[in-house]
């Protein structure tokens, strides 16, 4: 079991964006996001202007993790997905792997069956890409030593 998400390079994001784009074409869903279970957004495709995706990522991961705890309480190892139905917009969250989730926002008039059907292979494809990122040499291409925090002044400043 790995403990952290691997560093992601351009090729990883490109592949994952490709899987999300294909999913959106297949389903006509509005927006698809890949987030980590800690609440960070990794990448997204589709309409991003209408939604605060950063906040959605944080809340969706919290909701999913709360459901996972409920699953344990009813003696399930996990609920693999969570579906929230609204009048106009709905949300479906599907587990990708140990670290990540696929979050889909879609018009409620669309069939949730189709969303679920196409989400499964999309999640698999993304999981494969994350696995290959995990297997890559962790040190390759990520020299951050040029970023010297000691050189910087306060990261956050208070308004006068």
């Amino acid at each position, binding site marked *: 079991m790995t403990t952290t998400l691997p560093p992601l390079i351009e090729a990883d994001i490109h592949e994952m964006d490709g899987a999300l784009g294909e999913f959106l074409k297949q389903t006509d869903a509005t927006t698809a996001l890949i987030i*980590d279970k800690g609440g*960070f957004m990794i990448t997204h495709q589709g309409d991003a202007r209408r939604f605060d995706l950063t906040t959605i990522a944080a809340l969706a991961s919290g909701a999913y993790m*709360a459901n996972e705890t409920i699953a344990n309480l009813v003696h399930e190892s996990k609920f693999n997905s969570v579906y929230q139905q609204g009048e106009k917009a709905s949300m479906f969250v599907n587990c990708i792997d140990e670290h990540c989730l696929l979050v889909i926002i879609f018009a409620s008039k669309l069939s949730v069956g189709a969303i679920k059907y196409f989400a499964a292979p999309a999640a698999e494809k993304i999981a494969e890409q994350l696995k290959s990122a995990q297997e890559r040499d962790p040190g390759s291409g990520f*020299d951050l030593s040029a970023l*010297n925090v000691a050189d*910087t002044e306060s990261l956050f400043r208070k308004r006068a």
Partner: protein
Amino acid sequence: MAILNAATKEIQLKIVYYGPALCGKTTNLVQVHKRVQTAPGNKGRLVSLATNSDRTLFFDFLPIEAKTIKGFKTKFQLYTVPGQVIYNATRQLVLRGVDGVVFVADSQYSKMAENVESFQNLEENLRTVKLNLADIPYVLQYNKRDLEGAAPVEYLEFLLNSREVQVPSFPATAHDCGGVFETLNAISRALLSKFINQHAPQVTA
């Protein structure tokens, strides 16, 4: 769990404000949200999942972007946990993927037992998410220094900061923003330093 996205040149880090009930965790985030100097678009909305009586039920959440360092955007997500003892399952959820912790202690003498209990609870809950307090950056904030019943800082240090490795601690009056930015800057720098060191080239003999 920090995220390094080389495609977008972004580093994302998660900071959790932890501490006993009513110690001022949410007040810290409210003050950061209200007073931070940021470029337009670098500060997200402050989301509070609270009860009708304004007590934190799940968490508060504030996404905020620090200045760009040599082309890398550094994004921080600030969370609080609910302090009330009964919400322990929720605290464990919020700690998932945490990179650094601000432990907010209430300086009042009458709250010392709660401070110690909450600190022990932090250590226990970190273990449930497979983390060890000794391995993650954390700082202490001694809040409510302006109250009459405040214990001396030395006493708080003795109770909460007498481990083998002492961590930075900051006196604070979060309601008027005293010590809030000092605390945030300290944990942010500690986190970034650790993250950068992890991604520096390993020198082998």
